[in-house]
């Protein structure tokens, strides 16, 4: 007879924190904080969902912070003797001047007075040092990214579970298979090669490209994501590695998924663009190596090139793209590949 099934606990809630604080013999404030922290409450909580270090493989192309325009005069350090500034030699006699003040033109009667900043010097508003940047909205938000990437990059391998139906079918037909049939299982163990388009037309998405690399490394692990970047021809993508003098050129690895983030240089131009020869060669190269090819495009479907053939899977790089949509798209377009 089955034992009574314990009720489902669900997520850790505030009641559990109160119970823990009431039950456990903490004596110092720091110990109470530690109890709350390990239950996920308070500032002492560890955020295990966040990576501690940035993904090192992606070259940081963010522009350097410009130096302040007007540098403050260096203050003499206290406690050190300073040399007095050299004395300027002035002419013995003051020169006369004949400049007249210009009277400003009267403002146009139909418009209000222009704001002062129009005539002022251009001033870039950089954040104060030490101020964290405001949080960015990602093109694949956290709640969907995991599912989308799993659906996009999962490949099939032979699982350990026996295909009982297949085996029974073989026996019923009167012949024993030479190998035990096993059911395929989806896996992310092959990781992916990530090719990022850092061309000028992708400039609005450069931060998203870096974020994409971080998201994939968080899901698959650093070791399973190889990140390359390119500017025009994806086949010429390369990767800089610490300790190497030359960039490592991209090469497809047989059967390993390739994820490309690019806009094909669309720049919002008219629909029905044709892809360049570079892209067509790249697609052929990936197909020849049996690499699943997925291309994330930040523009909507109407802008996508239609002449890349059936091999690449083009996906809209957009917050509304979901794992379910992606699975449907993949099942429709290439039912046998996965």
């Amino acid at each position, binding site marked *: 007879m089955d034992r009574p099934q314990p009720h489902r606990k669900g997520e850790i809630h505030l009641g*559990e924190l109160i119970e823990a604080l009431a039950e456990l*013999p903490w004596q110092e404030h720091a110990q109470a904080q530690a109890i709350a922290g*390990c239950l996920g409450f308070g500032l002492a909580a560890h955020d295990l969902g966040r990576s501690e270090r940035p993904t090192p493989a992606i070259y940081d192309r963010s522009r350097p912070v410009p130096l302040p325009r007007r540098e403050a005069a260096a203050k003499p350090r206290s406690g050190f003797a300073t040399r007095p500034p050299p004395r300027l030699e002035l002419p013995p006699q003051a020169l006369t001047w004949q400049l007249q003040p210009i009277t400003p033109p009267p403002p146009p009667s139909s418009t209000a007075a222009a704001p002062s900043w129009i005539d002022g010097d251009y001033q870039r508003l950089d954040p104060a040092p030490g101020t964290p940047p405001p949080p960015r909205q990602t093109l694949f938000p956290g709640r969907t990214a995991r599912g989308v990437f799993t659906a996009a990059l999962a490949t099939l391998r032979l699982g350990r579970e026996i295909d009982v139906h297949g*085996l029974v079918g073989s026996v019923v037909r009167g012949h024993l298979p030479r190998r035990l049939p096993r059911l395929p299982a989806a896996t992310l*163990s092959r990781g992916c090669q990530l090719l990022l388009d850092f061309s000028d037309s992708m400039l609005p998405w450069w931060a998203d490209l870096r974020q994409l690399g971080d998201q994939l490394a968080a*899901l698959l*692990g650093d070791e399973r994501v190889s990140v390359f970047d390119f500017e025009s021809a994806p086949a010429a993508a390369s990767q800089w590695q*610490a300790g190497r003098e030359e960039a490592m050129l991209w090469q497809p690895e047989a059967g390993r998924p390739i994820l490309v983030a690019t806009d094909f240089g669309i720049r919002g131009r008219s629909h029905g663009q044709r892809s360049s020869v570079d892209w067509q060669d790249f697609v052929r190269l990936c197909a020849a190596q049996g690499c699943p090819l997925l291309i994330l495009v930040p523009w909507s479907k109407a802008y996508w090139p239609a002449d890349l053939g059936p091999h690449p899977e083009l996906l809209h790089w957009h917050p509304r793209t979901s794992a379910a949509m992606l699975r449907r798209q993949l099942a429709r377009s290439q039912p046998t590949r996965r």
Partner: protein
Amino acid sequence: MTPYQPRNFTLTDYRFAGDEALDIPPYLFSEPAVIAIDVALATGRPLLVAGPPGCGKSRLAEAMAALLGWNFLATTMTSHTRLEELTVEVDHLRRLHDAHCAAIPAPLPDPDKPPLPTAALKPDAAYYTPGIFWWTFDRRSASRRNLSPDVAAEYLIGLDFPGRERAQPNGEENTVLLIDEIDKAEPDLPNDLLEPLDRRSVRLPDGKTLSAAVGQELLTVITTNRERELPKAFLRRCVTLVLPEPDADGLTAIAQAHQPLAERARIRAIAERIIEFRAKVDEHGLRPPGTSEFLDAVRTCEKLQISVDGGDLWRQIEGAVLLKPAI
């Protein structure tokens, strides 16, 4: 400052002395670790332990099982691990084999020879392979593959406990379950574990559900090296503990607990070199040496009587044990 005294277990000086007979090394607990374990025991939640490789995450579970006097079960995740492997699998191949044998007509009895035993297909449950969760929640039914004692005896079914069993008062079956390196599993597996961890039960292929007995205590320790991000839903159900790399004092204390007869000055010198190496390898993006590698170095230096003086022998130790080259 008053050190925290746990309510759910007894620990003197935050130190477990080890058990030589069972080959369990000593373990030094930090206060955050003691608090997190006490919270996990009080709330009945799994304890998720994160930290760099070799910092003592898995040893923590083994030490706790010994300290509490509970059964200990452990499994290490791989990219091939599936939920069925952890709950229950059906051995289809053996069942097919038995069915095949049972279908062969029995030979005519030879009056001069003793009768051969007839092959027969066993009950379905005889082909179940219990996983680690089944063993944890109900070890008696797991050892009989959920057959009644009579039927199990008839088919000679009696599986051995796949972990370390300890005699407990009143026949209790409290268990420490270690699920090691969960970040090595497929990214969706942690979500699959929510059901057995939450409900403390496994569902069998015939639809029956086996649950842990009311009052049975369980400490589930799950470790991660943080190579991959874990699903948020999973994280929100776990008590979390991050074990940092110990500093030079901590390393020295750990080594002295492991090697009480070792020369203190040598241990201290090696600990200081480890801290130095950590800073160096961080600059070069390499993996810093962990506590287990430090203990290897101490053991080697002690055994071979090597001093940390920068000589050739020490450099060899550095290369082989501490600063492993990228291969």
